[in-house]
């Protein structure tokens, strides 16, 4: 359960600025590592490089074991039933019957067993993301990549889904690399948080989060303290440094 990135360099075609230049990172699981940074900085690109959707210009990305992915949008096949959408990753190796049995168990865990025969369009956005989580967890992956899967949801639903994610992770432990732009999400979920900034990207924060489950709750003082520290770093990395009061540099304070 490891991801090893060595001297990675990557620049998008037709752009001049390198997104990654001799970038190295080592992650070992099981556990959750949150990857934070300003929007559009290249967090998703890093996930796509790890998943093999993009090829680096130089350097190596080594992932130990199979990979599953929870995308920003649910990416369900509209013509397949919810059950078949969840079974899909297993079709390559297991029989359809076995795949569907395992998928149904996973759907029971995410509370959608009664929707097994429905099509994705019949489900709400939150339910679709639960199916997407079930699909990623049903696959026996060593490494799971998550790209802001809870971003489009309101706070109560987001917390509900994060709890569901933690429950599924305890059932099927693995190394999870989760991209988010919300430090609160990182504190709630992750054992390690990394903040990336700059061009080319480099880590400006890399800390193990050793809070208890209670300490991770949004309402806990320990959460608030860590969130403030992380916000300060994120605000510093933001282009508009006056955006976050208390952390940015205000023109009249110069």
């Amino acid at each position, binding site marked *: 359960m490891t991801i090893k990135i060595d001297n990675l360099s990557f620049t998008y075609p037709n752009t001049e600025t390198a997104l990654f230049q001799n970038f190295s990172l080592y992650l070992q699981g099981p556990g959750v590592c949150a990857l934070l940074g300003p929007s559009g900085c290249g967090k998703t690109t890093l996930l796509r490089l790890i*998943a093999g959707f993009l090829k680096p210009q130089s350097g190596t990305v080594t992932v130990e074991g199979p*990979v599953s*992915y929870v995308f920003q949008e649910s990416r369900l096949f509209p*013509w397949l039933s919810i059950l078949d959408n969840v079974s899909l990753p297993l079709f*390559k190796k297991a029989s359809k019957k076995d795949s569907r049995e395992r998928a149904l168990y996973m759907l029971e865990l995410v509370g959608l067993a009664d929707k097994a025969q429905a099509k994705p369009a019949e489900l709400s956005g939150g339910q679709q993301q639960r199916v997407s989580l079930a699909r990623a967890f049903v696959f026996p992956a060593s490494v799971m990549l998550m790209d802001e899967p809870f971003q489009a949801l309101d706070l109560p639903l987001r917390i509900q889904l994060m709890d569901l994610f933690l429950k599924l992770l305890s059932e099927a432990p693995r190394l999870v690399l989760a991209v988010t732009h919300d430090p609160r999400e990182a504190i709630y979920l992750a054992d390690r948080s990394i903040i990336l900034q700059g061009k080319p990207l480099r880590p400006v924060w890399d800390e193990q989060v050793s809070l208890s489950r209670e300490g991770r709750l949004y309402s806990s003082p320990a959460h608030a303290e860590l969130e403030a520290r992380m916000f300060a770093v994120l605000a510093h990395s933001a282009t508009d440094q006056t955006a976050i009061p208390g952390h940015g540099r205000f023109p009249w304070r110069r």
Partner: protein
Amino acid sequence: MATKQETLWVLLGVLALLLCWELGSHILASDLLLPDPRKTLMALLRLIGTRRFLQALGMSLVRILFSMAIVIPLSLVIGIPSALNWRIQAFMRPLFIVIAATPVLSIILIAFIWFGQERTPIFSAFLMMFPVLTSNIMAGIQSADPKLKEVLDLYEMSELQRLRYLYIPSLLPYLFAGLHSSLSLCWKVVVAAEVIVQPRHALGTGMQMAKAQLETTELLAWTAATVIMAALTESVFLAYKRMVHDHQD
């Protein structure tokens, strides 16, 4: 409500066409030039009762179905790899250009030399529909969502599984649209070929015989039968398409 209104307007359109026809035949005042709708209807009813007509209708329908049965699998076999591989696409392009640019009548005449009376209408219809259907299938494959393709890449699905779970469902709406537009084209080409090559039992042969005997009323009756059959097959096709669409949804 909207469907009822729509039906009403369609009926009004049919009535307007019949009225123009009636008016035209009244002005021309010659059954040789344009017999009125009532006489044509009577001639059609007389024809429907004859063995000759039923055999002709049946055989023309068989030719349509036969050409469809050949063109659909062949378009899939050529269209899918062409969409997925630029080399095959480039290799096939000259053939499509030649077929698209060749006049229908040339195709019918050449096919007559090669295939004889019975098979020429089938071959001609096949050749007319093939580029339309293949290009629709290619467009369908190319419309497949790249984000869903990434999901299949991630789980290392085989080429057959990609076809089953992504490409075939993506191309179905395009295939149906292509078949819809090909169906009326198929009737036109089959009957045109039948008129020229005159197989033993065919709607086109009936038209040609009626024309040779200057039986304009009967010629129009054969034509009306063709139009009605084309409309009927289209309705059956649309009902099937709706069924598949509902099943997919």
